[in-house]
């Protein structure tokens, strides 16, 4: 595993751990999601360089566009949660428990 591969793998894994273990604020989960998308963007861009082809060059831009859409959807949901629940603390998201 080359160093570049290791670096973006570790960036993604750190973001994933942060997303899995977020404790109080929903916003930190969204930030971790964005971090993961960013590491994937770097990975895709460097992969196109690695292969020395120009075939997949549009892919990182598309990824960026889609991750922006995801982030905006997440933020809209965050706003909706703040409107109905008061804050974005995770302890407040307990209306659906068994």
């Amino acid at each position, binding site marked *: *595993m*080359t160093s570049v*591969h290791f670096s973006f*793998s570790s960036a*993604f894994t750190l973001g*994933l751990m942060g*997303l*899995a273990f977020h404790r109080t604020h*929903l916003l930190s*989960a969204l930030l971790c*999601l964005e971090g*993961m*998308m960013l590491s*994937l963007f770097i*990975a*895709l861009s460097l*992969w196109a360089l*690695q*292969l020395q082809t120009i075939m*997949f060059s549009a*892919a990182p831009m*598309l*990824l960026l566009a*889609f991750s922006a*859409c*995801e982030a905006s*959807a*997440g933020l809209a*949901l*965050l706003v*909706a*949660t703040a*409107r*109905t*629940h008061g804050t974005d603390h995770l302890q407040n*998201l307990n*209306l*659906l*428990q*068994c």
Partner: protein
Amino acid sequence: WFLAWMGLEINTMAIIPLMAQQHHPRATEAATKYFLTQATAAAMILFASTTNAWITGDWNIPQTSHPAATSLLTLALALKIGLAPMHFWLPEVLQGLNLTTGLILSTWQKLAPFILIYQIAPNTNPTILTSMGILSTLIGGWGGLNQTQLRKILAYSSIAHLGWMITILHFMPALTLLNLTIYIIMTSTMFLSLKSLSATKINSLAITWPKTPILTVMTMLSLLSLGGLPPLTGFMPKWLILQELTKQNLPILATIMAMSALLSLFFYLR
């Protein structure tokens, strides 16, 4: 892989407004939880395919061959469809939605990840697949036992059915697709009949017989079919799957799955 990922993301984003349309706190909370899990799973899918591309230089879906990448892909796709051990979001999310949106969530949303699972199935680790399948059937059976809310019952039944489908994926993928089709038809029947009865709890099901006895009978029949009793269609995939498992000399596996089907049947009959 990239187009597959884009398709999954578009799917997620299209469902979110449908889920959050009802301005009830429960619906919003369900939409938020659903969004987080699905976005995580989609990012993991892309990460696994990128890792595979770095290691093997291959970007086609049927040729994902690196074992770490396929394991991660299996986990991510299982998170997307709600397979154990990543099923924890499904009952709560389904509870927060109205019945029509829950129908879309249970049937249509399972199609896309299943197509991906079907395509990468020959390359995946069979241990992971079958262990997740058995775990899903067991958890689907046990988890549904104490539920009174109908949507949660349907969520646990969905988990159990998906477990059956995943278990047979390694041996005969055609049975997986058959089971998926029959499951979609049966679950659509259940959801639509519950919607016309406007029933969301077991108590409201119990008082429907004076109003529309025919519909009540249909609901009971489709419940029994979901449980997999012999004269009804739901028995067919279970029978074929068990037959296939015994052909592959795995009788213990078949016994475990038959027992867990009994658990599901118990809470259907309530």
